[in-house]
């Protein structure tokens, strides 16, 4: 079976068909989302032209794939290509779709089929070609699934109800409207107090980070450096606390807060959030502290510093990168937290952003407001995260982390 596949005249058309179909689908989806016009991939077209392009892209003179690509672009415009362009699509879009499909298909196949010959090929060449196909497919696939929801989120927030219902696919932006595009955002800040929510979320997150570090740093140091009975058991129970589901805790916390009047207050939220993040922070930090050389600290002790001074003057300055990643991670947890805020806050003046967005989820509020709120909550955390991505990646993998 595998031997049968490992012949150039089978491998090339097979990969050709698959790749042309992938490219046709991608271009159709991308063009539909960008213009709202009717583009769709054609299975039969992909089959016919994929076989042809597969043979044309085998190693050889450059004119073969080039002329095959031009041919495919031509038949696509004529309506028989791997991508079908509906009537009423502007000439420019149609041309773009046809050229993108044939161009990317030919370019990809030419790279994939490097070294593949028409006759039998060896394992290495065959697997190399398959891997290059999978890589190309993987990049397209992951980029698409990650980007599409965010793309829909941002562009929906810029539209109005009527436009959305008329054609849900049309995400093209009419820049001539100018600031009118940002109307949803304006209304959220002027009529829905999103400025207050933003401030609340920011305050709560920063306080959570500060309190978490205050508790977790000494604790992590003790677990990492000091010898005491029950240390192993302790570091295990930290992990165990990771595993307690939030909803199980939220119910008694809700009851206790209802009875003591702490519900519906930011103070109550600030009492709870850090405790949910302390175990994570402690676990991440102790992993880092263990990796620091003990000799430096011992030198400090010999010079007459107390343990606490050693932590303050030696350990902390040495672990600034770890502190940055832990802070970032804790900030992210507090910023994104939804369940507790949803259950404990009822008063609109005390909402956090996530709670505020949840309150927009009603049939009376247009959905572009909901998406604008989502964008407002997402942009700061994304910006922070992209700016400090290096810390984040290291911090997340340093101590295995709750999701």
């Amino acid at each position: 079976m595998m031997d049968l596949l490992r012949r150039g005249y089978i491998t090339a058309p097979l990969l050709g068909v698959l790749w042309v179909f992938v490219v046709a689908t991608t271009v159709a989806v991308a063009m539909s989302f960008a213009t709202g016009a009717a583009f769709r991939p054609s299975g039969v077209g992909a089959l016919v032209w994929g076989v042809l392009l597969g043979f044309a892209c085998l190693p050889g003179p450059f004119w073969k794939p080039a002329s095959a690509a031009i041919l495919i672009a031509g038949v696509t415009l004529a309506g028989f290509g791997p991508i079908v362009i509906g009537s009423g699509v502007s000439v420019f879009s149609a041309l773009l779709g046809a050229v993108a499909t044939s161009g990317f298909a030919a370019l990809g196949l030419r790279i994939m089929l490097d070294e593949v010959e028409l006759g039998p090929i060896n394992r290495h060449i065959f697997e190399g070609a398959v891997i290059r196909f999978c890589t190309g497919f993987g990049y397209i696939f992951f980029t698409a699934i990650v980007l599409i929801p965010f793309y829909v989120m941002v562009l929906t927030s810029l539209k109005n109800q009527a436009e959305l219902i008329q054609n849900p696919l049309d995400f093209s932006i009419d820049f001539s409207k100018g600031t009118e595009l940002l109307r949803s955002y304006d209304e959220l800040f002027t009529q829905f107090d999103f400025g207050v929510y933003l401030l609340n979320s920011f305050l709560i997150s920063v306080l959570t980070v500060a309190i978490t570090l205050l508790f977790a740093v000494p604790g992590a140091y003790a677990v990492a450096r000091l010898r005491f009975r029950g240390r192993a058991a302790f570091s295990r129970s930290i992990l165990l606390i990771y595993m307690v589901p939030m909803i199980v805790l939220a119910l008694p916390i809700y009851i206790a807060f209802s009875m003591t009047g702490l519900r519906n207050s930011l103070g109550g939220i600030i009492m709870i959030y850090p405790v949910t993040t302390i175990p994570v922070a402690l676990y991440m930090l102790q992993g880092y502290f263990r990796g620091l050389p003990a000799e430096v600290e011992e030198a400090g002790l010999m010079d007459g510093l107390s343990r606490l001074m050693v932590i303050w003057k030696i350990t902390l300055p040495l672990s600034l990168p770890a502190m940055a990643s832990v802070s970032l991670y804790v900030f992210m947890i507090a910023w994104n937290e939804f369940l507790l805020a949803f259950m404990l806050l009822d008063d609109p003046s005390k909402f956090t952003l996530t709670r505020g967005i949840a309150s927009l989820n009603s049939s009376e509020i247009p959905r572009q407001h909901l998406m604008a709120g989502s964008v407002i909550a997402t942009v700061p955390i994304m910006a922070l995260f992209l700016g400090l991505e290096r810390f984040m990646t290291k911090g997340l993998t340093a101590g295995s982390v709750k999701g």
Partner: protein
Amino acid sequence: MTEAVPPKGTGPLARIEARLAWGLLAPTIIAVALVVVLPLLAIFWISFKPVSLADLRPPEVVLREDIRGDDEAVGDQANIRYRLRNSSQEQPILDVSFTDRVPAGLTVTELDPRCTLEGRDLSCDLGDWEPGYRENLMIPVTIEQAYLDNGEGPKDSPAIPQGKASNVLTNATFTLDNFARVFDGDEFWSVLWVTLFYTVFGTIGALLFGLFAALLLNKSFKGQGILRGLYLFPYVSPIIAVAFAWILLFDPFSGSANALLIQMGVTEQAINFFGERPLALIMVTIFEIWRYFPLSFLFILARMQSIDTDMYEAADMDGASPFQKFWYLSVPQLLGILSVLFLLRFIWTFNKFDDIFLLTGGNAGTRTLTVNVYEQAFAISNIGAGAAVAVVIFGCLLAFSFFFFRFISQEEGL
């Protein structure tokens, strides 16, 4: 000369160190005990209690006072009226009483037998109240000049009611009804099945996609950092934002996904992705995979980058093909991190609540155990039943973590 022996037991230095360690850990331990351990114990207690959402507010004496009749001129006859009721329709209140101050210039002409008046201090002892009891208590008074001059009405000195109500959360009533209700009927098994489907496929899917993404990015090229950051987006953005984006994207009436599928001829009619069985369950599982593949990808990538490249060079010399290198070299090296990730993700997916709650609210056959806690406690207002479900979850969790620690201690040497 005595023989030198190694010291036994803990020396003074070790004791100081241990004391310092516990001192440093104390704040964390106290905080965790208050917010994690105490609620866990409370959940066990509540799960045996017949408590509903309304019981969270204990019954109390509601009292309003006003003056009825003429109080315009000296010598007018009027009444101070106390309107009293038990706020609860289900619970009695015992030993109800209240105290109040009669404003200056009002002379009490006739006193209810249950009340006593000392100077201007009025106190009434009203005995035990049935659930839902209400009463109007009238105190007839005569108006004098001082009352008209002062302008001080009865409301200016608030009456203070008292009463003992039994709180269902703290009394000694216990019941097994909550557990009976939870395990009753087919519902429990369908919830358990949904939970298992969601957990198993969500976990495996996230791992496989994470592995695929890690393989893609395990080479250095221009833009690798950007792609790595991009692929983490689903994980770092707020759950509520991405969940609503998915709901809009897959909306049956005006969602882009449906419009796209119809345009491409995949389907004739719009599909209600989050509203149909069993599609809704598959969709929330896909969402779970989408949201958490970045985490697996990050860990697997970190492990891949720490694999020694010498091994691959040796394999190249021996003529191993790319697939063989992956299967015989990479996979065994990754098996450790894959199994740890599987166990961790399994437990966390099992515990997941927000995602399904936001996407479907537990409707259309997507109710997992965690969503059931919320459903019982808040939608049906039966807190006791919700707590019972939580206890079931906690039991499963204990079993998992037992397994986890047995396994992981061999794996990571924790």
